[in-house]
């Protein structure tokens, strides 16, 4: 029997992963109004790039982590330039963009199948070892997940509230034309938004890879959970995502503890429907 304290730690760790994935979705939606179904692929590519770097070079793990995050940022910017920007010349580009994110997700997923083959890859834990306190044990890697995700979330809140680029991005989100008039390059802001998203997805991929293998289909189950987190918290709200991630992680852990693990996804679906029926804008959402 797992003690309550251990369960709480699992909840916190899971919440950390959901925060990273959810923030990616919510930021891109908040800034560009595109719902990015390719987030799961960013997750996947982050894991694969880190694996390749570790395999091919003898850089230290920490360095690989930082480099991969950087690569993923550029990857996201490139993604926006290649797939989303050409669509913006059409009138109803919001819809086409959503469908393109779906199509490109399949493109990117199966590209990994072509490049790295169908066998799952696994990464080592970032730092080995376990923290112990009496009967409670907590892997350092999990602690790192929590610390990293919380500090990234804090940093992003600071970034969007205080820094010039963050403010510019929010301005573009409110009114792209207005932003252009006062001299904010809206295209570049959209690219940054996708860059940040891809980076968050990649980091989540790297952090989760030691726990689940990385293979071409792994992004989708994570994406569904992130979808529910984001809707629960309110699309576009960072604060909401933080709270919802932990609530849903708690729900998932208690479900897995009581029933089989396989029921977690159906329960998420039920939660999603209940949220939309009762409070469709989510916990902290604005219309």
């Amino acid at each position, binding site marked *: 029997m797992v003690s309550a304290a251990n369960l709480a730690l699992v909840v916190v760790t899971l919440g950390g992963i959901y925060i990273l994935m959810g923030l990616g979705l919510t930021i891109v*939606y908040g800034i560009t109004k595109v*719902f990015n*179904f390719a987030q799961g692929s960013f997750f996947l590519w982050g894991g694969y790039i880190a694996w390749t770097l570790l395999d091919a070079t003898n850089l230290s793990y920490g360095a690989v982590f930082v480099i991969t995050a950087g690569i993923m940022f550029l990857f996201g910017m490139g993604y926006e330039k290649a*797939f989303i920007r*050409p*669509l913006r010349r*059409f009138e109803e580009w*919001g*819809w*086409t963009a*959503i*469908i*393109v994110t*779906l*199509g*490109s*997700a*399949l*493109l*990117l*997923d*199966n*590209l990994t*199948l*072509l490049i790295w083959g169908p066998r799952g890859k696994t990464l080592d834990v970032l730092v080995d070892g376990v923290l112990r306190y009496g009967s409670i044990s907590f892997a350092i890697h999990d602690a790192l997940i929590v610390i990293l995700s919380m500090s990234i979330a804090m940093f992003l809140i600071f970034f969007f509230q205080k820094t010039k680029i963050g403010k510019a991005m929010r301005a573009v989100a409110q009114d792209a034309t207005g932003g252009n008039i006062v001299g904010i390059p809206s295209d570049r802001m959209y690219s940054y938004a996708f860059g940040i998203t891809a980076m968050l997805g990649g980091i989540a991929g790297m952090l989760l890879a030691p726990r689940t293998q990385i293979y071409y289909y792994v992004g*989708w*189950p994570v*994406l*569904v959970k992130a*979808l*529910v987190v984001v*809707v629960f918290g309110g*699309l576009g709200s960072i604060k909401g995502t933080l709270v919802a991630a932990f609530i849903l992680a708690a729900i998932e852990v208690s479900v897995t503890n009581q029933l*089989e693990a*396989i*029921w977690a*996804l*159906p329960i*998420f*679906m039920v939660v*999603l*429907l209940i949220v*939309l*029926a009762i409070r*469709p804008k989510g916990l902290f959402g604005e219309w």
Partner: protein
Amino acid sequence: MVNRLRDRFSGQSIFFITSIGIIALLPLGFTDERTTMHLLILSLVWSVVASSWNLIMGYARILSFGQIAFFAIGGYGAAMLSLNWGVSPWLSMLAGGFLSCGIGLGIGLICLRLRGIYVGIVTFALHLVMPTIMTAGRAWGTGGSWGLTNIPLPMIGGLAFSKLDLIPWYYVAFGFFVGFLYLIYKIINSRTGLAFMALRDSETFAKTLGINEYRFSVIVFGISSLITGVMGGFYAHYMRLISPTIFNLDYFLLALIMVMLGGLGKFPGGIIGAYIITFLNHYLVAYEAGRLVIMGAIVVSVMIAFPNGIMGIFEYIKRYRTRKSYIERLRLNK
């Protein structure tokens, strides 16, 4: 008189009638080629699915990604009824359709009050959750991760359909095809279709006139899941196998490409898309993973280059020609 005849048999309807005639006669050319026949049957099935998806996304402007989920719900419903309770396949296809219609209405009632991306999120989540439910639901007779096999074959007057002779299958599929496409066509040109057109052109004005968007959306959502569910039932009985692999995103994406390639909100587009993609997909199977990369690339490039699909190209040509003839007429008058 001639004018009236010309009105009734305008170029478009002549085109429709001849294409339906060609589709009806197609199997005569391929009686020996089982693969081609199989692909032709699949094309009919996917034409209906793509057209009903088009009805939802293109006309009703509901961003729905649940079409394959409804297809599979219909398929599973039909298979489970006829396997576990010995229901006749014809009835079970219909029952599968009504099951998927019921689930579609349930989801629609909750999420269609919201617009845009929320519906997309719910329906896509439904799609991604379905394989887990079907795997976990072994106790209810879903067959777990292996799915259901040996689904009974339908019978007509004591004669069972067989997988050796595909011609009867083709004509059953053709019957569904004609019936459902006529239904979709009627809906598009009915009060409901007009209501959606009004909503698309000027939402506020249409609502002021008293058009209840929610009600129409739920109705169309239900009809489309019914149609898709029946086709799912037919597909399950025809393939004699349904398993959670139907939820693999490649089916989803294939159907989505059919809609997009044909042209969103362009009625016969889904049919053209279905035929092209079904055959293309078959010939690309040899490339395995590369096939889906190519398919993904097609979606992306079609959306970027021709957001209105093939029908959009036709319309462009037509507009270009009418403009040209208009200019010529002006010249003659001068």
